[in-house]
């Protein structure tokens, strides 16, 4: 962090000085998470979900490595090995439930984190790269979660793998060969299961790597804040430690209470009972839906029911689904309003609220059966989703008159003008 008033790392022990010359890891920690990282003093609780998502990633990696000690990635015994974990391995049931529900909690944290960024304009200059890396993390997380869901080799695993790889079949000309390449066969079987296991183990570490870039990119301009106003002096900031370590720790405690509640008392509430039936290539479950965190995108996929011109409906659905997330990559250049925070954008505030409701509606439709009225609602909600990013945001940037911004973070907090340091 380049603020001139950031605390400088000064080792206090002989060993500390020796270490600092050779391998300055303590300096790195101090500058990134310690008192050497000045953070805006007015961050609200919406700023706590990035660290929370990071902690749930660690939960997933730790429990995942443990599950891999007992799991067998072989189509003949994968299902039984999961039951072995549930029944025979010491605390195996707990570790598996922690892993299965940890994914949901990771996505809860990540969605709140994304929503925070959308509302407070955290994707705007100079933080575009942080946002872009965040979208990459989200895409990687979705791929990881999907492949993880295939591993128990139950009915939903098998048919999830079949449906999702079927998306690639929609690509003209090369679709079928690509699907066969991904699966290593004509339908999900041992080859697919093995590569999914391998990649499911690999990708979380790739995510961790991109998170390092994400945080690195963050530490160059420093954190955004609820006013969206730039930090102007030392009075606008407090050191990350102890202020935000303590605050993040408190949120973590609350999150872990909810996490353990779900883990111990509602462990299958977010799953599908059909996945306790071994994979059967001859019978599709009556109601096949992905995990809840994919529902909005799944609704967009299913919203396309008729061919348009020469483009088949199947391809349109796939393109729309991927575009729904890829459009985020263009967000910093679609929303040209110079005001970052939605707090000072009266019209944006309303449209942001509508977008949140829209995504919730899409999510509900994505989890519902593929029948009316849900298909029609998905079509309208999906159209609005794209309109928000491609039409409403660019227009708002031009037409909206933002409210006056506070002169400084300190002024917005205390009502007193910022005294510039002498």
């Amino acid at each position, binding site marked *: 962090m380049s603020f001139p008033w950031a605390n400088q790392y000064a080792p206090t022990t002989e060993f500390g000085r020796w270490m600092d010359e050779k391998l300055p890891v303590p300096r790195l920690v101090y500058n990134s998470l310690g008192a050497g990282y000045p953070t805006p003093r007015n961050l609200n609780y919406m700023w706590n979900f990035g660290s929370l998502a990071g902690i749930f990633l660690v939960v997933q990696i*730790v*429990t995942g490595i*443990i599950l891999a*000690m*007992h799991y067998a990635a072989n189509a003949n015994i994968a299902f039984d090995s999961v039951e*072995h974990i549930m*029944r*025979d*391995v*010491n*605390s*195996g049931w*707990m*570790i598996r439930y922690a892993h299965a529900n940890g994914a949901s909690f990771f996505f809860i944290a990540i969605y709140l984190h994304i929503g925070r960024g959308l509302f407070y304009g955290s994707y705007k200059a100079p933080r575009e790269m942080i946002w872009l890396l965040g979208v990459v993390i989200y895409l990687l997380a979705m791929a990881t979660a999907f492949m993880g869901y295939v591993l128990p080799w139950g009915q939903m695993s098998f048919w999830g793998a079949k449906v999702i790889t079927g998306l690639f079949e929609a690509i003209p000309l090369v679709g079928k060969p690509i699907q066969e390449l991904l699966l290593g066969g004509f339908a999900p079987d041992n080859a697919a299961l093995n590569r999914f296991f391998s990649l499911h183990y690999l990708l979380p570490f790739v995510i961790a790597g991109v998170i390092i870039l994400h945080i690195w990119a963050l530490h160059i301009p420093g954190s955004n804040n609820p006013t969206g106003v730039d930090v102007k002096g*030392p009075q606008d*900031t*407090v*050191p990350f430690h*102890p202020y935000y370590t303590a605050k993040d*720790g408190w949120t973590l405690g609350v999150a872990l209470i909810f996490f353990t509640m779900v883990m111990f008392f509602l462990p299958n509430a977010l799953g599908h009972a059909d996945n306790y039936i071994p994979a059967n290539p001859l019978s599709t479950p009556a109601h096949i839906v992905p995990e809840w965190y994919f529902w909005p995108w799944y609704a967009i996929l299913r919203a396309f029911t008729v061919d348009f011109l020469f483009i088949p409906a199947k391809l349109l659905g796939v393109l729309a689904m991927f575009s729904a997330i890829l459009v985020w990559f263009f967000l910093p250049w679609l929303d040209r309003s110079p005001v970052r925070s939605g707090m000072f954008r009266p019209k944006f505030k309303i449209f942001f609220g509508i977008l949140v409701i829209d995504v919730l509606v899409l999510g509900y439709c994505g989890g519902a059966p593929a029948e009316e009225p849900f298909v029609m609602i998905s079509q309208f909600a999906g159209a609005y989703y794209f309109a928000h990013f491609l039409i409403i945001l660019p227009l708002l940037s031009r037409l909206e008159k933002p409210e006056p911004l506070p002169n400084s973070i300190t002024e917005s907090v205390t009502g007193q003008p910022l005294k510039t340091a002498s």
Partner: protein
Amino acid sequence: MATVETADTAVAEESGVRRRDFINIAAVSFAGAGAVATVFPLVNQMNPSADVLALASVDVDISAIERGQAIKILWRKQPVFVRNLTDKEIGEANAVNISTLRDPQTLAERTKVGKENWLITLGVCTHLGCVPLGAAEGENKGEFGGYFCPCHGSSYDTAARIRKGPAPRNLDVPDYEFLSDTVVKIG
């Protein structure tokens, strides 16, 4: 930052302990206890699972083993030698002065009362865990007529006691009991 300590400094100067010190210690202790409670199952999962423990005992039919023969069976994924000693082998084992042994034990201590001809030991060399030869017909029984470990040359006598070579102990005798004259439960 200057604002960090100001509120508490006055109190701190009087008593030396601030409310915040207590909160810090309480919070970190609570988190520490939680961390230990979490780590325990995460490590304990590596212990033998229920299906492994369920195979921890086996019943062996020994009726077909003639005097002088031995069989190898699998118990907890390890070989166990069940050997029906001849009178000559029993005599050789009893003739040894046990004070000269590395791991002093009599044959009687290594067998059940009235069943001194049944020598039941793990087939795992106490040196580094290889399976000694001598249980099957025609295998090298070593210079003391019991078992011989080909890995590092440990020789065991007819009571499976270590007599020569690097192994530190006699072949281990597992817990077992005779359910009848012809069935032994090992484990």
